[in-house]
């Protein structure tokens, strides 16, 4: 690929690099045995996705992806993993089974089918339909969330509230039969 570094091709080159990193890292998330290694690979996946969002002019989504997922949610994951701090013996050796093999085959078939079916549709979207002046900016995303899809957005926040209340309820429940109160 001699033209990979040509200024016109740089976005495509960056996309393929980020896509390869995202796919390899997400496979490693599933195949690694060590939970911390899995979490770190998940972070790598999320960061490459943020890069792809930025390439698609969605700077706001990219920033939020880093801020919320990589910076907050994954830190909570790692916090919990470290509190458990499982040793290699507790994790145990990999246990291959027929069901897992079948699952891998099914997922591969699904991805292949989706790629074949969607490739033509995706390539047919003309890039010129996106207005680079407003597309993906904070203002346009804000208008979409708080004007066009306000009801859906507020319903989502209601679901999150239900989730928080549920977590508090579970955490405050007394363990019956335990020694201490």
């Amino acid at each position: 690929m001699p033209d990979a570094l040509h200024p016109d091709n740089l976005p495509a080159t960056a996309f393929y690099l980020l896509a390869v990193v995202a796919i390899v890292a997400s496979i490693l998330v599933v195949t690694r045995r060590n939970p911390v290694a899995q979490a770190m690979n998940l972070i790598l996946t999320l960061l490459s996705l943020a890069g792809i969002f930025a390439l698609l002019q969605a700077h706001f989504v990219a920033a939020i992806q880093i801020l919320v997922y990589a910076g907050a949610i994954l830190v909570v994951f790692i916090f919990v993993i470290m509190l458990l701090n499982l040793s290699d013996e507790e994790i145990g050796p990999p246990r291959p089974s027929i069901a897992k093999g079948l699952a891998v085959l099914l997922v591969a078939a699904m991805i292949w089918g989706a790629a074949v079916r969607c490739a033509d549709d995706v390539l047919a979207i003309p890039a010129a339909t996106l207005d680079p002046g407003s597309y993906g900016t904070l203002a346009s995303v804000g208008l979409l969330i708080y004007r066009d899809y306000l009801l859906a957005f507020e319903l989502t926040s209601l679901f999150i509230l239900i989730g928080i209340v549920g977590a508090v309820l579970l955490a405050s429940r007394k363990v019956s039969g335990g020694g201490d109160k």
Partner: protein
Amino acid sequence: MEDFLRQNIVLVSTLAKAIVVPIAIMNVVPFMVLLERRGSAFIQDRRGPERASIFGIRMFGLWHTIADAMKFITKEKVVPAGAHPVFFYMAPALLLIPAIGAFAGVPFAADVTIAGETIPLQVARLDAGILYAFGVASLGVLGIALAGWASNNKFSLLGSLRSASQMLSYEVSMGLTIMGVLLIYQSLRPEVIVQAQAGPIWKWGIFVQPVGAVLFLVVGFAEANRLPFDLPEGDSELVAGYHTEYSGMKFAIFFMSEYMSMVTISAMVTTLFLGGWQIPFVTTERLHGWFGTDVAGQALTALCQVTSFAAKVGSLLWLFVWVRWTQARFRFDQLMKLGWRTMLPLALLNLIVTAAVMLVIWKDDPRFGLGFTG
């Protein structure tokens, strides 16, 4: 060569900024170490380290930091038994990269126009620059968490667990404390926020949003893991917290990251609340009037503004040192109580009051015609 420079001025200036700015931030570290040592001595009525001399020249103790660097580089590399082979080495870098990277969105002077091309004196001009800076800065906690886990040491693990919970708790408040200032300046772009603070000093964020400014400064101390919030490495309880097992240059990277995140947080406070590179009462236009708008005049203007920016950041860095040597460390429960029961409600209150006032004052402003009323 001159033709090449003229044709590719944007490319060359971008590369120059991307190289010069990180190096400049890194070179703040030795001076900060000097300031910390001599500053603590000044506060405690001592003389501090100043004896190292090269041919009788003492440089106020600056040689001590150079001796430190040489010691760090030449020290034996110790890796504890049972440490993770990859993550143990990766952790210092994971802390250093966000500390430098978050600075990319901060503007340090007004735009310069050379050969018809406008060159922003800011490494990266992004649509959501503030969000980018906060996002990158929030990744720093991963390095600390990983360092504690990969060291295979109970004290390190406890230190990094404390750090993860502390930084997460304060990150929530950090996002909320700046909301007020963002509402007033109507932008998430650092360069727009700085431009809005041009002219008289009372247009600065600290006068428009005093509560937000104080809250953000406190949260900034917590995010930089500085006293009184340095529980991740509370020496009396945890040896040295997450970097107990690190020595030599790997420790030096943790050490440098702490100072660089202080620089980054000071730069953010300056941008949001202290007018960024603005000189009080002296706008860019007035500076151009004095010096002219040719290349030399623009260079002088930029120099004045960079000096103003550096002076503000430097004062805040001195505040970090000052607080460290006068305040005692919090207990962990006090830290959590302050974060969740004081900072968070105050930040929310500040946001609600600001939003209400804005709605009343500017309800007829055409910029707010976002379609809510039809």
